[in-house]
C-alpha cells in the first residue's frame, strides 16, 4: 500500500471529524494534490452534513441572537481570498486550544466601503490582548472539493481599542440585553447593557457628523434625574461605538443630545434618541 493509498483511506474519518490535528493537516495537504480525493471528500462531506441534518433541531435561546447581532455589528469581515493556498505558517495560529473566549474583536471602523488598505488594517483587529483571547474566530475557511479547510490569518498581538473591549465585556455579560431605535436626523442606535455590570454601550450606524462646534452627549435619564455619560463624535466610517461613562442604574433611559462643543452638565436640546433599558 502506498502512502497515498493510506491517506486516501482517511477521507471517511476526515469527513466525520475523527482525525487528530496532525492527521487532519496531513490529509488536507494530500487533498491539494488529488482531484480524486477532493471529489470523494466532497461526497463524504455532503453525507456527513446529512447526518448533521438528521439531528433534532433545537432553537437557541432568543438572547443568543441578540448577542450575535450585537457582535457582528462591530466585527469586520475578512477580505475575499485572493489565493486559496494555506501555508503551514498560516495554519499555526488556527488551533483554538486554550482559547477562553473565541469571540473576534470588532473593528468599529469597518464598513463595506472601506479601502483595501483599511481592510488590511482591519486584520490587525484579530489580536490577542492580555485578557481577551480571540484567535480562533479569525480562522478562515476555504473550500476544497466541497469541504472546509481551516486556515487562519496571522494574529499579531496588539491592544484592542478600549471602546471595543468595553462593548465586548458588556455584551458578554450573562444578563446582557439590547434595544434599538432610530436616531432623529439619521442613523440607528442600539444600546447594549448589563444591569449586573451597571454598564452600557451604544452602537450607532450612519450617525450624521456634527459641525465642529457641536458634540453628541450621552445621558442616563431616570425621570427628572439626568446624569451626563460622556461626549462623542460620529465615526466617519458609519459605525460609532461608545461605552457610557459612569454607572447605569437599572431602568435608566439612555439618551443622546446634541450639545455645544465640550458638552453640557444638563441637556440643552431635545434628545435625538432615547432608549429605555427596562
Amino acid at each position, binding site marked *: 500500500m502506498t502512502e497515498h493509498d493510506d491517506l486516501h483511506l482517511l477521507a471517511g474519518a476526515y469527513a466525520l471529524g475523527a482525525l487528530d490535528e496532525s492527521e487532519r493537516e496531513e490529509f488536507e495537504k494530500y487533498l491539494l494534490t488529488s482531484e480524486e480525493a477532493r471529489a470523494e471528500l466532497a461526497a463524504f*462531506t455532503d453525507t456527513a452534513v446529512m447526518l448533521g441534518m438528521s439531528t433534532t*433541531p433545537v432553537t437557541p435561546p432568543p438572547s443568543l441572537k*441578540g448577542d*450575535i447581532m450585537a*457582535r457582528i455589528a462591530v466585527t469586520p469581515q475578512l477580505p475575499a481570498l485572493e489565493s486559496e493556498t494555506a501555508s503551514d505558517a498560516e495554519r499555526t495560529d488556527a488551533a*483554538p*486550544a486554550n482559547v477562553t473566549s473565541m469571540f473576534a474583536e470588532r473593528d468599529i471602523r469597518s464598513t463595506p466601503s472601506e479601502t483595501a488598505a483599511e481592510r488590511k488594517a482591519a486584520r490587525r483587529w484579530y489580536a490577542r490582548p492580555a485578557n481577551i483571547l480571540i484567535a*480562533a474566530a479569525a480562522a478562515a475557511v476555504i473550500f476544497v472539493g466541497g469541504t472546509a479547510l481551516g486556515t487562519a490569518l496571522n494574529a499579531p498581538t496588539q491592544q484592542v481599542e478600549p471602546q471595543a473591549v468595553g462593548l465586548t465585556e458588556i455584551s458578554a455579560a450573562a444578563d446582557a440585553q439590547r434595544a434599538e431605535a432610530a436616531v432623529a436626523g439619521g442613523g440607528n442606535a442600539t444600546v447594549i447593557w448589563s444591569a449586573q455590570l451597571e454598564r452600557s454601550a451604544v452602537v450607532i450606524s450612519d450617525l450624521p457628523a456634527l459641525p465642529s462646534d457641536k458634540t453628541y452627549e450621552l445621558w442616563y435619564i431616570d425621570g427628572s434625574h439626568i446624569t451626563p455619560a460622556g461626549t462623542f463624535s460620529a465615526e466617519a466610517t458609519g459605525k460609532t461605538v461608545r461605552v457610557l461613562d459612569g454607572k447605569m442604574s437599572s431602568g435608566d433611559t439612555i439618551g443622546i443630545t446634541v450639545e455645544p462643543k465640550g458638552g453640557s452638565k444638563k441637556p440643552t436640546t431635545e434628545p435625538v434618541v432615547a432608549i429605555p433599558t427596562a
Partner: protein
Amino acid sequence: MQKKCDMLGTVPRETDSSKDHESTQLPPSKEELLGRVALGDQKAFAALYDEISPRVFGLIRRLLVDHSQSEEVTQEVFLEIWQNATRYEPTKGGASTWILTMAHRRAVDRIRSSQAGRDRDLKIGVRDFVAEYDNVSDAVEITMEHERVKVAMAQLTELQRQAVTLAYYGGFSHSEVSAMLKVPIGTVKTRLRDGMIRLRDELGVAS
C-alpha cells in the same frame, strides 16, 4: 421544524420581519443570503440565522451536551459565518454544507481542546451514544433527513454504524473510537470509510 416558527415569535426585532415564511415551504436560498452577508448585510445575516440556527445549535448540542458551551460554540460559528461569508463559494457547495461542516468542526475542536470533552466522556459511554441515536425517532420532533439517515444507517454493519456514530455524533477521534470499540485503529479507519461509502450511496449523495 416547528421550532423555527417559535423562534421568530420570541425575537421580535425588525430585522426578522423579512423572515416570516413557513418552514414547510422551500426557504429562500441560503446561498443568496450568504451572498448578501458577504456584502455586510446584517439583515440578511439575521435571516440566515433564523433559517439555520436551530440546525447549528441542535448539532452542536448533540455533540457537546452542555448547554452553555453549546451556546458559546454556536456564537463562534455564526461569527465565523459573518467573517468568512466573503470567502464562501456557492459553486463549491451548498450553504448548509458549508455552515454545518463548520459547526461540526467547531464542536469537535471544543471537545478536543477543553475539559468539556473529558467531563462529558465520564458521563456518557458508547452504549448511550448509540442508544441515543436509535431513540431519537421517539422524539416529538424529527427532521425529514432523520428518516432517510435512519434507513441508510440500518444498511451498515454493526461496527460501521457504531464507528460512524461515535465519530460524528460523539466527536470522538478514531483512536478513541478504536479504544471504545476495542478494535485496531486501522480497522476503525477503514470502517469509517466503508461506512461513509455505504451511507453516501444509500443517501443518494452524488460522488
